[in-house]
């Protein structure tokens, strides 16, 4: 019975993967165009240092975007990524400064705490039919509130010197956060393409009833994915704790917006079932390059907000037009 239902699924699946290539192509063209314009308008844009700086500044967004890609592929959303990022940042710092723990145990505890946040959100989504919007909205408040409580709104400082390596060190010319992000992106890509869980994620996102009928434990998939998102948020927070050499309860508000924008621009559909990690990588690059480019041109951050909004509209519009053209061809 599994094989009979699997066949149409795999056909749809490979079509979506094909659609993914075309999409990625147009997104890549978009990225190249933006880079071209910035190279012409700012003499500081096209340089190795600037490129490394862009990657470093947005490594945490890339990690958030990985978790979000998996969540959005399911047709769900995770609004808590910014809040859990702050919580991860604060817990790690707190454990090192007040908890008297070493770096590794503190990191582990911070990751456990943030994964737990995802687990709790996922629990209500999976087994109590909460909409993920509701569940993660609540978790956003809880996580950020806790982060602010433990820092009294200010910051936790006095972190051990060796901890700085994570956020401020590099291996060769490549900053450590960029390497961490690269590893996370690769692992997620493998998960989606080589593992059964990946197939299940696409299936649930594409057609939840069919997935259920095919015997996929939909609840468990949602639980796992939201937990992964929590883990990613915590990891991003730990990197920020090292970059800022302190635990900050206020970070993450802009990161939430940037991460969601990256995932959408990268071609992942909010409906679920469509999207890839390489697409998300392109989305993160586009957001990063725009922010950096506008900074280099001295453009106010208000215009950056406008620019990102416009790009989101363009990206999704191009998507919709391409989809309609494809349907006409059939």
């Amino acid at each position, binding site marked *: 019975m599994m094989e009979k239902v699997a066949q149409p699924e795999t056909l749809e699946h490979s079509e979506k993967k094909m659609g993914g290539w075309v999409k990625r192509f147009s997104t890549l063209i978009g990225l190249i165009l933006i880079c071209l314009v910035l190279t012409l308008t700012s003499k500081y844009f096209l340089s190795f240092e600037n490129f490394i700086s862009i990657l470093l500044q947005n490594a945490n967004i890339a990690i958030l975007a990985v978790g979000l890609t998996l969540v959005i592929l399911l047709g769900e959303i995770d609004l808590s990524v910014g809040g859990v990022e702050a919580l991860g940042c604060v817990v790690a710092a707190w454990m090192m400064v007040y908890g008297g723990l070493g770096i590794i145990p503190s990191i582990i505890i911070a990751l456990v705490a943030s994964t737990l946040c995802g687990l709790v959100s996922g629990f209500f989504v999976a087994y109590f039919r909460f909409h993920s919007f509701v569940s993660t909205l609540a978790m956003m408040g809880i996580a950020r509130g806790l982060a602010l409580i433990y820092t009294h709104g200010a910051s936790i400082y006095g972190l051990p010197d060796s901890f700085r390596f994570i956020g401020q060190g590099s291996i060769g010319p490549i900053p450590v956060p960029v390497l961490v992000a690269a590893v996370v992106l690769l692992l997620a890509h493998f998960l989606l393409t080589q593992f059964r869980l990946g197939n299940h994620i696409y299936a649930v996102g594409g057609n939840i009833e069919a997935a259920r009928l095919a015997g996929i434990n939909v609840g468990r998939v949602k639980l796992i994915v939201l937990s992964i998102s929590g883990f990613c948020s915590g990891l991003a927070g730990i990197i920020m704790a090292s970059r800022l050499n302190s635990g900050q309860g*206020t970070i993450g508000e802009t990161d939430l917006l940037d991460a969601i924008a990256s995932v959408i621009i990268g071609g992942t559909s909010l409906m679920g079932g469509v999207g890839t990690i390489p697409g998300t990588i392109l989305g993160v690059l586009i957001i990063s390059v725009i922010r950096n480019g506008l900074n280099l041109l001295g453009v106010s*951050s208000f215009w950056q907000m406008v620019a990102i909004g416009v790009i989101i509209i363009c990206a999704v519009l191009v998507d919709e037009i391409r989809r309609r053209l494809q349907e006409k061809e059939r």
Partner: protein
Amino acid sequence: MKKILVIAFIVLFATVSISFAQKKEFRFGMAMQTLQNPFYLSMKAGAEKAAAELGNVKLTIVGAEHSTDLTSQVKQIEDFIQMKMDVIGIVAIEKKGIIPTIEKVNRAGIPVITVDTDADGGKRECYIATDNVLGGKLGAQWIEKALYGKGKIAILEGAPGSQANFLRMEGFKPEIEKYKGIQVVSSLTAKWRRDEGMRVMNDIITAHPDLNAVMAMNDEMALGALEALRTRGKLKQIKLVGFNGAFEAIQQVYRGNMAADVVQYPERIGELFVHWAVRIANGEKPPQDLPKTPTNPPTVHIDSGVAIVDVPLLQIKVGPAFKAIGGELKNYTN
């Protein structure tokens, strides 16, 4: 033939040395906490005016997207490094979290000047700001006089991680505690914001309906609190004191809606930044005998001045002539 060569050589030498003698162009970047606050807009205006007067200064002034989210400020400063600025000015959102970024600027060999609100570390050439401690003290002293030494007051604090808030409270609290008849019934943060100021003031009035005065540590919060007082009909009962010298607040003092305001001359701070940035970019060091900041490492504090203005001062003593008062006060009209 020789004569011609000599003349040509002299002309060449002259042109080359003239072009060297021309003033060098300076490029400064200033990363402000936010551009959504009139206080910082005044500061920006002052800096731009000074830059225009000098003629050879190119200013890039940006504000962080969220006034409490450090990450956008960090990105802006890192991008200033990429732009190879001559001097970088920083209004630090969080005094500890900004330190690694300042150290990054130090490693890039670019001088750092902290403006208005300091960082608690990293190498800074100087810190240009009001004496926030003195300002807090002036506020406390004014309240004591206005209430004749007796009454209940509340404090609206700024963002907890801000050095400016820390210093203003350092000046205000010990001074107000000296006056035994004055009781601080509530001290809550409104994060420097107008909407928070309104909300928190509203809650404080509910809890303490017999309040006599409120000290707001910046004008945005004061202006928000003003709306709360107006809605609850407590404008006459509660004396509202602000801190910044933002023109909207000064107008409210002139109209009698606010009781007093601690004036910081934000335009002057902006001007001072540009002037000191030019001197530092030229290799000058600020005089080391000036008072130093209570940070680690300490740095020279360049005082931009502070005063307190109240209704009698603006309405009676000065009246229409208050346009003539120095700084941005001269832009205030009826």
